């Protein structure tokens, strides 16, 4: 039912831009008679920000338009299974003993239904909406940067042109304002490729997340798994490049009074926790910022439908406000897209810089 309502979102969005309000309102009235179920804002929003086994594009009346994606499973009971998610018929049917759980611990995930009726979760390597979005963004990144690199290789002594002109200032910003001050002029070159990769990866996915139609619209950088992997990369690089001084100071910082280290090793515990808190914070910050942006934008849209349940006129009235706010939010989110990419990269660079720090710089 929410899909029906989401199609109405699209219709209304078009309405806001067209002057043919009267005719459309009749259509809307018709649409409403077939969807008497109450509008559920939470479900709409969560459907959007959650990963899914098919890429739902839109629903017009009762026809779903979506791209089925491959489901790849390894079950301890029945081995490997590869099939298209369209076999589930949007989660309504079972297939080969697998189904999408409607509720419970594994809600909206593929589970295997055992003979006794219990549900177990198999190893799930499915190419979900987020995985496709990941591939799309990686493809875009490769196309952009390999073509830019080609031009740099051919004509490095000329002024930047076209795409190169867009990339170069950002690239120089990451190099001169993030990497150099955080890591130091001698060692930054080793870490610059990683910093540039995370910066542009996060940026392009943040922006793709703001594009409402396929291939954008997936909430990739607002997915905790993705931000966790990015933070793990920073964590591993930080830990591997940690100087002796970094580890020594962690367990026994000579500047901290003895009573804080012995007999209860209070500061060492705090310091060691800090090592793990840093990537955790990176994970949460990016995830929360991007997800929150999506939730707020969708919340404003939902206002229209909440009011529509009371009165159509109220819905029309509120739609003006909703759309204004959503446009405003989108612009704000565009800013956030850059800021979060910047913050993640800057913090990663700072953590690496801290790990590399020699004793002298403490003074």
């Amino acid at each position, binding site marked *: 039912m929410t899909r029906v309502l989401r199609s109405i979102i699209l219709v209304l969005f078009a309405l806001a831009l067209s002057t043919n309000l009267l005719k459309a309102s009749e259509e809307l009235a018709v649409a409403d008679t077939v969807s008497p179920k109450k509008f559920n804002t939470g479900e709409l929003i969560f459907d959007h920000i959650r990963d899914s086994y098919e890429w739902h594009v839109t629903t017009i009346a009762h026809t779903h338009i979506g791209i089925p994606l491959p489901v790849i499973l390894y079950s301890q009971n029945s081995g490997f299974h590869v099939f298209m998610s369209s076999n589930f018929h949007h989660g309504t049917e079972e297939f080969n003993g697998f189904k999408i759980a409607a509720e419970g611990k594994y809600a909206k995930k593929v589970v295997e239904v055992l003979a006794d009726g219990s549900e177990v979760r198999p190893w799930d390597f499915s190419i979900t909406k987020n995985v496709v979005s990941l591939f799309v963004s990686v493809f875009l990144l490769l196309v952009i940067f390999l073509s830019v690199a080609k031009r740099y290789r051919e004509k490095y002594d000329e002024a930047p042109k076209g795409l190169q002109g867009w990339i170069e200032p950002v690239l120089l910003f990451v190099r001169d304002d993030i990497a150099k001050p955080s890591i130091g002029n001698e060692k930054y070159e080793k870490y*610059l490729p990683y910093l*540039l990769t995370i910066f542009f990866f996060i940026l392009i996915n943040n922006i793709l997340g703001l594009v409402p139609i396929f291939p954008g619209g997936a909430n990739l950088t607002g997915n905790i798994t993705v931000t966790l992997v990015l933070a793990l990369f920073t964590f591993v690089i930080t830990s591997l490049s940690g100087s002796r001084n970094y580890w020594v100071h962690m367990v026994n910082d000579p500047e901290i009074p003895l009573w804080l280290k012995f007999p209860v090793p209070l500061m060492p515990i705090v310091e060691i926790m800090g090592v793990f808190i840093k990537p955790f914070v990176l994970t949460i910050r990016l995830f929360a910022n991007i997800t929150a942006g999506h939730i707020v934008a969708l919340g404003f849209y939902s206002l229209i439908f909440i009011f529509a349940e009371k009165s159509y006129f109220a819905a029309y009235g509120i739609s003006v406000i909703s759309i204004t706010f959503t446009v405003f939010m989108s612009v704000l989110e565009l800013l956030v897209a850059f800021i979060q990419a910047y913050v993640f990269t800057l913090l990663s660079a700072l953590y690496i810089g801290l790990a590399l720090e020699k004793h002298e710089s403490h003074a």
Partner: protein
Amino acid sequence: MGLVMPDFGLFFWMLVTFSLLLWILKRFAWGPILKALSDRENLIVESLKSAENAKEEMKRLQSGNEKILREAVLEREKIVKEARDLKESIIRDARHEAGIEANKVLENARVTIERERVAAISDIKSLIANFSVEIAAKILEEKLADESRQKELVQNYIDKINLN
């Protein structure tokens, strides 16, 4: 809760894809791009430096030119002076040579004249001797008759002989 629980499948794909992306971009994009950027920066720094150097060189060349010009003027003056000196010395030498030559000619003339004079004198002497003999003969012829007369005549002649 589903929202904050990491998902295994996505974790796997993200790890693999991001690692590949990092490797490919590092190898084929960041490497060449960053190298090109630093190359370009070096090129600009070097170009500015070489422009500065060229300016310095130009200045040096200019001052060098002036020095050369000054030297050329001095050189010219020196050459002109030398030429003048040479001319004067040639004239002087020529004059000197001519004097010597003239003296030589005069000397020769003098020697010749002397020789001729001596020869003439000896000729005259021999002539006088002959005359004397002839006179003597004549006197002898004329005066031999008259003794006194002879004597007078001889005396007369002898008086007349003048050895100018």
